[in-house]
């Protein structure tokens, strides 16, 4: 089933068929100064974030809007704007919760970053290596790639259903800068279209 069909199927099952503008959608949310912690939850708090740190104001999509998640993207930045390994390469898992259901459960992310070198697919093989082992990165010299995992199953976020992304570890070091999570995929955005 294609992503277009799956989105229509799920929205239809929920009684919320949509005729919105079909497009590519990327949702993102930032956690500032996360420090050392065992759990980060993205798309839960929007307080104090600017439009450059998140593009949502609540943890659900608007009425008539929905999307299919194709890719999870994570990046950690220091206060000096240097891209760092997320959680300092510790073993970590990511889960996506939509409504009251866990739709991605404890998916490991650390293979797709840093020097672990075991990316899940060939597209991201470079994400698993560090290009320069001799020096530290700077804001302009990026020696890592951000974490990116391409999902093999389309995950739907229906309209007006709360969702969140959890990143779990055993005391992961996330620093004093920011950690960003983005969900990328196919979506529908509200279109006044024929109704106004």
């Amino acid at each position, binding site marked *: 089933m*294609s*992503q*277009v069909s799956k989105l229509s199927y799920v929205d239809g099952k929920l009684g919320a068929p949509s005729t919105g*503008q*079909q*497009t*590519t*959608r*990327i949702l*993102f949310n*930032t956690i*500032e100064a996360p420090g050392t912690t065992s759990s980060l939850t993205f798309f839960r708090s929007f307080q*104090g*974030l*600017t*439009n*450059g*740190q998140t*593009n949502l104001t609540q943890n659900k999509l608007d009425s008539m809007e929905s999307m*299919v998640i*194709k*890719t999870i*993207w994570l*990046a950690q*930045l*220091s*206060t000096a*704007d*240097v*891209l760092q390994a997320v959680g300092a390469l510790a073993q970590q898992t990511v889960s996506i919760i939509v409504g009251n259901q866990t739709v991605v459960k404890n998916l490991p992310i650390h293979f797709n970053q840093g020097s672990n070198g075991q990316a899940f697919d060939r*597209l*991201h093989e*470079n*994400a698993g290596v560090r*290009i*320069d082992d*001799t*020096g530290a*990165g*700077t*804001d*302009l*010299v*990026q*020696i*890592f*790639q*951000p974490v*990116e995992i*391409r999902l093999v199953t389309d995950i739907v976020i229906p309209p007006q259903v709360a969702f969140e992304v959890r990143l779990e570890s055993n005391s992961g070091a996330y620093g004093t*800068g*920011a950690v*960003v999570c*983005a969900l*990328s*995929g*196919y979506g529908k*955005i509200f*279109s006044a279209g024929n109704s106004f």
Partner: protein
Amino acid sequence: MITAQDKILHVANKLGLTSLQNMQASTGAVYDVDTELSGQIFSQATRHANPSVTNINENQFEVNEALLVETIAFYVKNNAGATLNFQQVYGSSAVIVFDLVIGNKRVMKDTPVFAAGMPYSFANAGTQTVPVGEETRASYVPRHQVYMEGAGVLIPPQVQWFVQYTIFDLVTGAQIAASAETSIGCYLFGTKVLLNFNTSI
């Protein structure tokens, strides 16, 4: 599976553009730079030098020409006319948040383009760079492209379009101002429909 051609013809049919199917299919890209620092790209292309800043005369296609947008990319252009990598100018924590507006409709909404590299557009190889005061070393130079899911979005003939954007710092959340030396440029790439006179003259 809907192909690019299917999507173009579907939209053309919806808009009553019956002659579009007889036109020449091609591959094309349009680009422009916000040299006015207005926060909009393409809307002032008519004032820009061609091809050093833009390759269009106005931000709408002529009769029976169209572009199915399949990739959107951002870059930086300096005063000397050089095309530069967004991260290499603004640093890793910068992010462009943009909308693509076609006619009176927003078809891409609050879409981020991360300086550290976008989903699906990792760099395939590193490059040697020499930041001021540092030794030469290899680094990734990430890409700043959005690959459209599915078949893309069509810009129909004779409909104005533009990209509206703002640059932020992800860590502080503050807005970053561009300058004449760091103007933001954008290209839209995809399946193009070119006017074909063969069937009408």
